[in-house]
């Protein structure tokens, strides 16, 4: 097949463009984020929580959130299960084993500040960052509002300001990052009256939690929630009941969220590199096939023509020979006829002459 220079350059261009379009995503997926070892966290011992909602009030205050519909001292809001929303970074839920359960469990819910956050991994403008101090922070100034972070978060934390027309933001707990940088405690931790919340280095918190479990094995289930969930979170939990019973999913696994898409991201350069070569090859093959088919066809036609021609020639020759023969035969026949006629005439003449002679 013939490939013009222009076509060849075109294919090269396609290959090049493909590689460029795939390169960036791969480069990023190679970066393995391991979390910051000295980062801070909070240990939430649910066995100590009394459901007073002071943490909610403190959070509302330090983050200057809108005033709630029901006052923070009103515990009737605990009747139904709540989640974080655009006006509440944190909520406390009550879990009863039965309607008559005299010892309900209270659990505070807020962003768990994953070591490798799903929200940061899926954000296509990189608005979320895991800070070395432990907080997962959000940069409103670049957020497009696609809300993929909300789809991806396994803990169902980020909320959105759906009511704002021009400046809607994703809203979630900041682990009081600005306060922590100033050396203060997060608002909720500071206000907690029962020490159900403990702020400190995550590594030390894990050790402290283990100690509590070891000292009171009958009080705690032997599991620090958040130590390994989704690759580990900065917020850690202790519980007397299975976490499933207090509204926390135990089926999340220990794989950090970015791993879920790592495989497919690494397929990008394969597609971008392989397709142009493969497709160009297929194109060349199909072109070649067409050409071969065409050549074969014209060859077959030519052959058929020559064959027909030679056949016709033979036929003609035969016909000519036949005609010649026929002609000869006809001539012979005519000649014979003429001779016979002449002979007859001669005979007749002789006969007549004889008769005339006898008459005489």
């Amino acid at each position, binding site marked *: 097949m013939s490939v013009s220079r222009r076509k060849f350059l075109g294919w090269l261009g396609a290959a090049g463009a493909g590689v460029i*379009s795939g390169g960036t995503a791969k480069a990023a997926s190679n970066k393995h984020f391991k979390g910051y070892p000295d980062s801070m966290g909070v240990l939430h011992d649910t066995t100590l929580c009394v459901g007073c909602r002071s943490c909610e009030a403190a959070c509302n205050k330090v983050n200057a959130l809108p005033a709630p519909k029901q006052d923070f001292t009103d515990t009737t809001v605990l009747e139904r299960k709540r989640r974080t929303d655009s006006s509440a970074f944190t909520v406390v839920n009550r879990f009863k084993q039965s309607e008559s359960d005299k010892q309900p469990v209270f659990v505070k819910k807020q962003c768990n500040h994953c070591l490798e956050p799903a929200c940061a991994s899926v954000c296509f403008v990189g*608005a979320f960052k895991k800070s070395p101090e432990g907080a997962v922070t959000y940069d409103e100034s670049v957020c497009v509002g*696609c809300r993929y972070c909300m789809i991806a978060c396994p803990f169902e934390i980020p909320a959105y300001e759906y009511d704002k027309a021009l400046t809607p933001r994703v809203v979630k707990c900041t682990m009081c990052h600005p306060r922590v940088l100033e050396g203060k405690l997060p608002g909720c931790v500071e206000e907690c009256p029962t020490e159900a919340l403990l702020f400190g280095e995550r590594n030390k918190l894990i050790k402290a939690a283990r100690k509590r479990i070891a000292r009171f094995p009958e009080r705690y289930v032997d599991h620090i929630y958040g130590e390994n969930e989704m690759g580990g979170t900065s917020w850690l939990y202790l519980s007397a009941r299975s976490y499933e019973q207090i509204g926390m999913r135990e*089926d999340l696994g220990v794989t950090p969220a970015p791993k879920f898409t790592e495989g497919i*991201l690494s397929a990008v350069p394969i597609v971008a590199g392989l*397709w142009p070569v493969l*497709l160009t090859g297929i194109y060349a093959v199909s072109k070649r096939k067409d050409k071969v088919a065409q050549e074969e066809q014209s060859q077959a036609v030519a052959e058929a023509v020559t064959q027909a021609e030679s056949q016709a020639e033979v036929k003609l020759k035969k016909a000519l020979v036949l005609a010649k023969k026929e002609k000869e035969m006809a001539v012979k026949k005519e000649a014979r006829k003429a001779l016979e006629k002449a002979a007859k005439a001669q005979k007749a003449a002789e006969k007549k002459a004889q008769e005339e002679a006898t008459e005489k």
Partner: protein
Amino acid sequence: MSDEAVLNTKPITPPAQSLYTPFNVIAGIILIVGFIITIRRFTGGLDAVTNLNDNYPWGIWIGFDLLAGVALAAGGFVTSAAVYIFGMKRYHSAVRPAILTGFLGYALVVIALHYDVGRPWRLPYPFIAQQGTTSILFEVAACVALYLTVLFIEFSPAAMEWLGLRRARNIVVKLTMLLTIFGVILSTLHQSSLGAMFLMAPSKLHPLWYSSYLPVYFFISSIIAGLSMVIFESSLSHRYFAHKMDEAHLNEKEGIAFGFAKAAALVLFGYFAIKVVGIAMDNNWHYLTTSYGTWFLVEMLGFVALPCFLYAVGAREKNLNLIKWTSALTVFGIVLNRLNICLIAYNYHLPADEKYVPHWMEIAISLFIVTLGVVAFRFIVTRMPILYAHPDYQDEH
């Protein structure tokens, strides 16, 4: 022939006829309602027109307009690859309508995204402000932006022939091979990536739909959607724009339907098989007996296996009518699959009363955007050489 083609460039409705045709009236009402809701959306925020909430940040504008929209616009890359790369020249007359449908499809997807995202004027931010390259959505955004450009260039020769820009048109036509290959790369990447987006939510998407094969499912089913949309769109075009078609289009019509139906039957069969492999790999058989399992079987049997069978029968018995209806069924099945993944099987762990049901205004906007597409399609095919070869460029194919 050329005389006929010149006659054909006249507008579809003679000027004497009333503007109040049923099509115009219905389209007009939808567009006016859509326009009013648009104002509401951009002055009152998403809350004013949608039922989106913190558990369901994505509604039908993503499930239908984006996910289904992109899949159904796959006809462009499927057809141009078949004709230009695989050399199936007998389908040549299907290329331009398919490219046009694809181009309009992607353009509408981008319009729909402006309604859905919180701050649409920031849509270029992933490229100009800060790149979140670990995000599958970044890949989707980059590929969709590039592919929309590719489709625009692929479509432009028709517009240039119409406008008489011969030289520009000839330059663009020379790029056909390059654009086709580039289009296939981009389509492979973003069609699969739309599925890969949900790889992030293994705890939220029901196990029957969640699979590490999601990207493959999305890509393969986009080929099915593309093939079916070409058949579907061509049967509608033959019904309403037959007078715009030249002999080549009318002659190739049946061959395209039979060929594409056969291809779709094969791809549907393969799709069914890899779906089963996915279930087997994760050993999810036991979910089939649950209510979600029943729904999964409805999708798999009613909208994958059944169309596969019907396409095969239609292609074998040369039954054009059956193929036509099967293409509609298949298109519906693809839409259902995308809605299942994005909405119905998403958040399967939440109680029924917390499930999202679209607001009527969300549906109205989706309808508005589809109507925009139909009106634009009609405007273009009644003016530009889409369903016939332009007489000046008759012999070039």
